[in-house]
């Protein structure tokens, strides 16, 4: 893909912090713009749908809504651009998605655009290459950065902190101890939002085999009602049965599905704490930072603390104030703090 040429006479520098997520892609920009879009991309299937939709490409919820008329892509899976079958198409969809999120940041034509993009902590080189390829068409210089690190950097929590970034495809764990986290400081697992969706769908199907639903419907239910609390209001949803909307109580199923990611999270925390300097382990336990879309599950911080107390003897969990933009805000801060010569060298 051709790299974006800089303007003849740059009149400013626009920094972008981009969180390219499996479920949502968010941007925070140095012009004050903050935008988020569901990570869906669709292209009209044929001339008829092109004429009807009046667009060459659709993004986010609009693409989801019109997906029957579209070649529909969710280009990111487990936090990286999907490879395998349709890899080229996923790469193009990801590039278009990056282009769209940059466009939504509303850069001026006469500005240089420098972006820091959050990538999963343990993404492979081919995934990082794909993200960079997608970005270079739309920004003048781009750097990748570990997602959980950018969350911590955004909150100035660089010492003795354990960051948990719960996305749709992956949950990233990062141990911050006053230096750049290395591979051994980071753990990624796939017990994240999509896993909760699958569990919830499975549990509802087992309990109510007659109910008809799609994974999208389950995802919407989860986003509205997700909770791990022991005491929660009954969750009654209408699902069609042979075409007729029928009420179902899925309170237990939602709680069980949301709780299913907690033990693997505690496993990962245990791993990162256990192999850390014993003198500082207690400080790590007392500063666990919970971010990402998954952190919006009600009661998750309390449940994590409870299980940490059970298995590790202590635990204090703090939620990020803005789960959707936590990663993007941190990436923006990194972009701002990066010296000029570094940006120049990577152009």
């Amino acid at each position, binding site marked *: 893909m051709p790299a974006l040429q800089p303007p003849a006479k740059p*009149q400013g520098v626009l920094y972008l912090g981009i969180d390219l997520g499996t479920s949502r892609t968010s941007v925070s920009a140095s012009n004050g713009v903050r935008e988020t879009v569901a990570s869906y991309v669709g292209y009209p299937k044929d001339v008829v749908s092109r004429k009807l939709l009046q667009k060459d490409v659709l993004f986010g919820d609009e693409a989801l809504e019109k997906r029957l008329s579209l070649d529909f892509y969710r280009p990111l899976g487990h936090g990286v651009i999907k490879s395998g079958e349709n890899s080229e198409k996923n790469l193009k969809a990801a590039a278009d998605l990056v282009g769209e999120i940059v466009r939504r940041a509303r850069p001026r034509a006469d500005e240089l655009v420098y972006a820091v993009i959050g990538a999963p902590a343990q993404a492979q080189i081919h995934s990082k290459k794909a993200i960079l390829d997608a970005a270079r068409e739309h920004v003048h210089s781009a750097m990748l950065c570990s997602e959980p690190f950018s969350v911590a950097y955004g909150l100035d929590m660089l010492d003795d902190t354990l960051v948990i970034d719960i996305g749709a495809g992956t949950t990233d764990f990062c141990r911050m101890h006053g230096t750049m986290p290395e591979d051994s400081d980071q753990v990624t697992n796939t017990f994240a939002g999509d896993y909760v969706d699958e569990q919830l769908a499975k549990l509802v199907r087992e309990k109510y085999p007659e109910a008809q639903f799609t994974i999208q419907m389950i995802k919407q239910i989860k986003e509205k009602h997700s909770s791990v609390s022991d005491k929660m209001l009954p969750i009654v949803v209408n699902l069609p049965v042979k075409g007729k909307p029928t009420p179902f109580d899925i309170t237990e199923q939602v709680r069980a599905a949301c709780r299913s990611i907690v033990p693997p999270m505690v496993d990962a925390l245990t791993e990162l704490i256990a192999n850390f300097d014993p003198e500082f382990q207690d400080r790590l336990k007392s500063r666990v930072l919970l971010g990402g879309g998954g952190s919006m599950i009600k009661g998750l911080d309390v449940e994590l603390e409870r299980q940490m107390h059970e298995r590790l003897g202590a635990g204090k969990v703090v939620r990020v104030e803005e789960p959707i933009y936590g990663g993007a805000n941190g990436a923006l801060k990194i972009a701002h703090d990066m010296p000029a010569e570094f940006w120049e060298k990577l152009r």
Partner: protein
Amino acid sequence: MSFQTGGSFRGSAKDLFSPAQIQHLMRVEFDRAQRYNYPLVLLVLGVDRLAQLQDLYGADVKDEIQGGVAGVLRGTTRASDSLGYLVDDRMVVLVPHTPDRGAEVLARRVLEAVRNLRFECDGRVTRVTVSIGGAYNNRKGELSFATMLEVAEEGLRVAREGGGNRYVHSDLYDFFERKRAKDAARVPAPLPAAPVQIPDTALDALGQRIREMFGLGEGDQDLLARIQREVVASALREVQEQVRRALPDEAREQSERIELLERRIAKLSESLGMTEAELQRVLAQRSVDGGVASVYKNVQGLSASAAQAELKKTLMSKIFEANVELRRQIDAAPDARS
């Protein structure tokens, strides 16, 4: 074969109003000028020997030359003047609020500018001239738009027959006005009356009435028949005369209605055009986002007073080095995706 226009005037005849558009505009402007009593000039012009030039240099030449002349017209007229082309490759310029002296000045300026146009064809330079016919509305007495146009066209004809490269104002308003009035009055003669079939009951009633009026008896059948024929013939003549008188009035009424409708169409076309232009402007503004300016004019970098500045500086270096290393690995294995 290439054909290029030299000089500062460049344009395209396609930029001018079409015959239908300019006809509407001219009529509207003429009516307005008559109503509000301001001077109006109409110039009709054509490139001299255009057909021969086309035969000589090819079909593209005509467009190029007409484009050049259109460019001249654009350059020498005001934005408020209307430019269009008529059939037979003639162009027309409508110049409102301009007296006849101003028209002469304008015409001479156009003649000179066209003379200075230079067309290059395969290295050979060709020059062209135009002929111009003019007409004004600043005369006493009745004047119709059709007459004004005919006067201008007559001027163009005379200018061409005189060798071209000139401006002629024929001043034949009265002649064309009379001709036009005569044509208007020449209404089609009523169609020959078809044999009239008068119902027997009507004839019986007429006979009865005549008998009563003239006191005719049974023996006066011949006289009765003669009077009946005379009455019927007289009635038919009167009907035909009424029809003949009614036709011009009806034609005039229809003509006025057509003109009124044409004016309305022109007005609606104009407002439609303006609305479309405005919509296009708004749409263009929608699709081209000017963006929001960043608060930074230069690359910032870490402030020395930032919290944990040294640590952050180290972290920035490490992130940069990791990205450099990533690029190096990607460059070393360009097929990293596979």
